[in-house]
């Protein structure tokens, strides 16, 4: 037993030696052979990197929405685009938040913490002296808004309960608005104009970036609800922002909120809800098909190139076995067993695939790096799991493609092989 283990070790060492030798002696052929694997591995890693990157970018965006906030709105996020389904629903009222908050206070076991009103419009323009920013996002809310939103202030403060209740004409602005209107200068204390109202800037948000690359939080002008209504009327789009106690119990929280809202809207039990409760998970389910699409395309490309690569390797290994028939005969004459020869050729094809895999990894690492350098906003992410998966796939390709020729070689008759010309 001990002897055969040693034998195995020495034979494997010999096989590694032969394999390296063979690959070095046939560099171009080995490279061409490995090309399929290289392309396959680049495809795997680039796909994985893209998916990783999308996930990361997405998570970053979702974090902006807050994992522990759910939103009551007229329409549902998960059926976006089907606005006609919600057209006939009655508008939501910002005053619902007062009713919700009273219910929360009466129930010590509530899964909900606080409801904050929000009325908004995309069509606001902001002016400072002769500078104008079109298409700002104006948002009227209460002083408790920061409890339900991410993002710190880089200067100034949020509005107080008193200002909130009085509808004082003050505004907290996003970073893009601040730099757009004031550049490097301090924004806080200046007066900006929206429609015909004048607002004093009391705070500026730190830069947050775009949500899913679409909607910018840095484009907001947040003001007390009363101030919003005075400026834009009561026709803005209403959202009820509800902070929940525990993001793990989001389903319970939604159910509770659903009950409260139905009571507020006085819906009889058999009637369908005429509002939607949204959470960030809805976006995730919208993104999944895209991710799956990328994954499917990637797996297809990977599969194709690995398949072509495997056939190439099988072919080359068959040729190699043919060319080395006499060597196989000689080795058998000197005492090599079937398994010894089998291992020798398997190790050779696995080695070619592993080298191909490593070249593929380095290539995609460089590509990822180049993309990340050229487009810093583009989400790319190279993970250790991908490296591991690539190596496993390389080895598997080597074994699969090398097996048939290796078995073939191991079964060669020694007397015939030695006579082979």
């Amino acid at each position: 037993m001990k002897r055969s283990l040693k034998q195995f070790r020495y034979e494997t060492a010999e096989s590694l030696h032969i394999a390296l030798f063979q690959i070095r002696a046939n560099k171009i052929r080995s490279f061409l052979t490995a090309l399929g694997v290289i392309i396959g591995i680049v495809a795997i890693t680039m796909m994985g990197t893209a998916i990783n990157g999308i996930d990361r970018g997405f998570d970053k965006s979702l974090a902006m929405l807050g994992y522990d906030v759910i939103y009551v709105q007229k329409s549902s996020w998960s059926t976006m685009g089907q606005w006609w389904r919600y057209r006939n629903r009655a508008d939501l009222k910002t005053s619902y938040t007062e009713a919700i908050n009273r219910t929360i206070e009466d129930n010590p076991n509530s899964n909900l913490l606080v409801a904050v009103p929000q009325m908004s419009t995309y069509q606001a323009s902001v002016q400072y002296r002769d500078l104008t920013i079109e298409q700002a996002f104006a948002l009227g809310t209460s002083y408790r808004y920061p409890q339900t939103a991410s993002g710190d202030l880089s200067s100034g403060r949020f509005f107080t309960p008193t200002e909130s209740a009085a509808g004082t004409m003050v505004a907290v602005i996003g970073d893009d608005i601040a730099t757009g209107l004031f550049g490097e200068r301090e924004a806080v204390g200046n007066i900006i104009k929206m429609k015909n109202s004048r607002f004093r800037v009391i705070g500026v948000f730190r830069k947050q970036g775009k949500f899913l690359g679409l909607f910018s939080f840095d484009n907001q002008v947040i003001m007390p609800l009363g101030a919003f209504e005075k400026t834009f009327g009561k026709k803005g789009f209403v959202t009820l922002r509800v902070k929940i106690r525990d993001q793990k119990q989001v389903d319970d929280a939604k159910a509770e909120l659903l009950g409260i809202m139905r009571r507020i809207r006085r819906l009889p039990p058999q009637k369908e809800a005429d509002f939607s409760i949204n959470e960030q998970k809805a976006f995730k389910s919208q993104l999944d098909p895209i991710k799956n699409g990328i994954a499917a395309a990637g797996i297809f490309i990977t599969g194709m190139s690995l398949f072509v690569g495997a056939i190439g390797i099988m072919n080359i290994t068959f040729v190699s076995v043919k060319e080395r028939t006499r060597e196989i005969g000689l080795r058998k004459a000197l005492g090599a067993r079937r398994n010894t020869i089998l291992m020798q050729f398997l190790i050779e094809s696995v080695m070619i695939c592993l080298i191909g895999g490593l070249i593929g990894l380095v290539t995609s690492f460089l590509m990822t790096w180049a993309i990340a350098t050229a487009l810093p906003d583009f989400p790319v992410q190279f993970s250790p799991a991908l490296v591991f998966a690539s190596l496993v796939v390389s080895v598997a390709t080597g074994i699969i493609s090398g097996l048939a020729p290796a078995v073939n070689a191991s079964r060669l008759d020694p007397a015939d092989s030695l006579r082979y010309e």
Partner: protein
Amino acid sequence: METSPVITMRDLKRHYSMGEETVKALDGVDLEFLKNDYAAIMGPSGSGKSTLMNIIGCLDTPTSGTYILNGQNVAEMDDDELARVRNREIGFVFQTFNLLPRINCLRNVELPLIYAGVNPREREERATEALNRVGLGDRITHKPTELSGGQIQRVAIARALINNPSIILADEPTGNLDTATSQDIMEIFSDLSKAGNTIILITHEEDIALYTRRIIRLRDGRIESDKKQ
């Protein structure tokens, strides 16, 4: 003192079926080889010399008959057992393609020891010693392409010796060599025989056969004569 034979063959046959007809390469061979035999197998081309050699060397198995090597019935062995016997009991020298062309002499000579599971240090020691024995101690790092035909055969003999086999088998070892070199090689075989090795070689040259002590003549797969000299 009569020693028991190293090799015993009884009614040994090796038939090749080539479609319709069968080629009777060996057609009933009875042979014994004793320890320290030094024999030449002769015969015209196609008489079955190589076939016999392959069977003795366990590269091939007989169609029928018995072949006992050192008390083991070889006809009943599977592939791996045959590989083991080739590794431990037999040392081969071929006419051509004796060495792997791209590795040096030392690595060529130590190949049987790799398959025997001998550790690298001992392998190198024994290979060096075997190369010294055939007078090539100064060529161990040379590759076969840098050697003459005679030197290549000497390396092959060193490799055949390295695992202390029961028999050294040589199939026309001088077939590709000029007369002077052939004589050198035969001197080595004769020395090995004097040192107690059992040697069987195939040749079709009478003057090569004269180096040995026994000449076996084959014709059409049968033994025509078997004479001590």
